């Protein structure tokens, strides 16, 4: 006798790997096209927002922190990593709702919809990473190979944090439709909690621990240390970031697995 509800699939019912890869590529491509009106000009236009923010903040705060010669470089590293975090989490949070037209009419793994929704933020981060490198080289701070590898690792960790958050929040957003407004406030406050426009060392050291609990903080600080200061963070620091990212991703996966089977019912 059947009791708990279950669905089992077997044989050819499973999606072939090639078709799944095609689905992921199509979701990334169509999301890019819908967001930027299918033109490169639309994408460049979207880059102007964080770029203009950088110019404004640099103009204002570089006077305030004139004694710090690397302030501009630290600002650009922090700002672009933050932009990835903010844009990625916002897109991820609304991803299932935005693509509800697929969930209610066809059978598609919800995690694919969530993960691919972060793709635009990843593309932007890739472009900004090149911009960061140009700034570093032109300022006489060419990063070493180990610094570049470390930075790539930090970006992966931040990506895992963003995906973990998105997996959890996208299911919750279907139940609580003002979660995006709450998250907007958190992101706004988080911009000042993370040491983006100010150097962390202007705060008493006893507060540093609390700031490091906010996930973007270690990513930003470690990236600055490796790329700008040329100093590698400690192994303990790396371990902390790895555990932090793994916990965010794991919790996100667990919440997603719990909520996603009924996602279509809440759309």
């Amino acid at each position: 006798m059947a009791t708990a509800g279950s669905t089992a699939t077997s044989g050819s019912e499973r999606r072939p790997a090639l078709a799944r890869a095609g689905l992921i590529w199509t979701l990334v491509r169509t999301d890019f096209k819908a967001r930027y009106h299918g033109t490169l000009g639309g994408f460049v236009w979207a880059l102007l927002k964080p770029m203009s923010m950088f110019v404004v903040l640099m103009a204002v705060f570089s006077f305030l922190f004139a004694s710090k010669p690397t302030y501009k470089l630290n600002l650009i590293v922090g700002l672009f990593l933050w932009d990835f975090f903010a844009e990625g989490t916002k897109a991820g949070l609304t991803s299932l709702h935005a693509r509800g037209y697929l969930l209610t009419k066809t059978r598609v793994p919800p995690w694919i919809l969530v993960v691919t929704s972060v793709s635009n933020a990843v593309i932007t981060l890739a472009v900004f990473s090149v911009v960061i490198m140009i700034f570093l080289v032109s300022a006489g701070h060419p990063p070493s190979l180990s610094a570049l590898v470390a930075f790539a690792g930090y970006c992966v960790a931040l990506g895992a944090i963003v995906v973990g958050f998105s997996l959890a929040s996208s299911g919750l957003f279907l139940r609580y439709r003002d979660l995006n407004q709450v998250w907007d406030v958190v992101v706004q406050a988080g911009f000042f909690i993370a040491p983006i426009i100010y150097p962390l060392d202007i705060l008493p050291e006893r507060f540093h621990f609390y700031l490091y609990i906010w996930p973007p903080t270690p990513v930003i600080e470690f990236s600055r240390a490796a790329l700008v200061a040329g100093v590698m963070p400690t192994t303990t620091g790396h371990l902390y970031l790895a555990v932090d990212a793994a916990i965010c991703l794991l919790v996100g996966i667990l919440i997603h697995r719990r909520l996603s089977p009924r996602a279509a019912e809440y759309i």
Partner: protein
Amino acid sequence: MALITVDAVSKAFRIPTVRRDTIREHLFGLLQPRRFHQLQALDSVSFELRAGETLGIMGRNGSGKSTLLKVLCGIYAPDRGRVERRAAVTPILDLGVGWNPELDAVDNVFLIGSVMGLSLREIRRSMDEILAFAELQEFANLKLAHYSSGMSSRLAYAVAFRAVREVLVLDEIFAVGDAGFRQRCEERYRQLHAQGHTVLLVSHDPNIVKSFCDRALLLDHGRIVREGSPGEIADSYVTTLTHRISD
């Protein structure tokens, strides 16, 4: 051989007396507890869909047909019971497949085709055929937001008929488009049937069930109340409706 087995599947929806969709509404409603009504959409439904057959499902509005199709396609999870799928299922539900209105027809075909399991190469190869079937070649680069509901539905059928791998699940087949489009759908359906594809078809039209199905089920209040030949089920369905009207 059964391609889909539905074993004692039940599905209920909890309908609250007051809807609360936001954190604010939940917080402000903490001191005002609400009641929930249990809507039993499916109640211990069991049947098998055998390879190569066309199974028709009939029933009044609210009898659980759409919920059954969604559970069967894996869109809804059952509360109790078990659905076992041994073949790829291509659904066309609610006269559509789910479009992104901000994309044109070509990109939507890529999107839906990919979701339905076609590879990018298969979609590229079939694009002209799909657009021709839907008679939408000249509107291929128009955003779906500017399509009429009939145009969207024609495109949906065209993609799904091309994408079907083993089992096709159809909600109200042949209810869209003009006579010419319906005739093309019927021809395509007969081709698929001749090729050995399996079809699950929901319809309110007794003639469609009699013409296209090998066997049929009658649903009422979330239960299968009768199972038999398409003619018997279509007649029972009409009788049920007639009694209800005369009552």
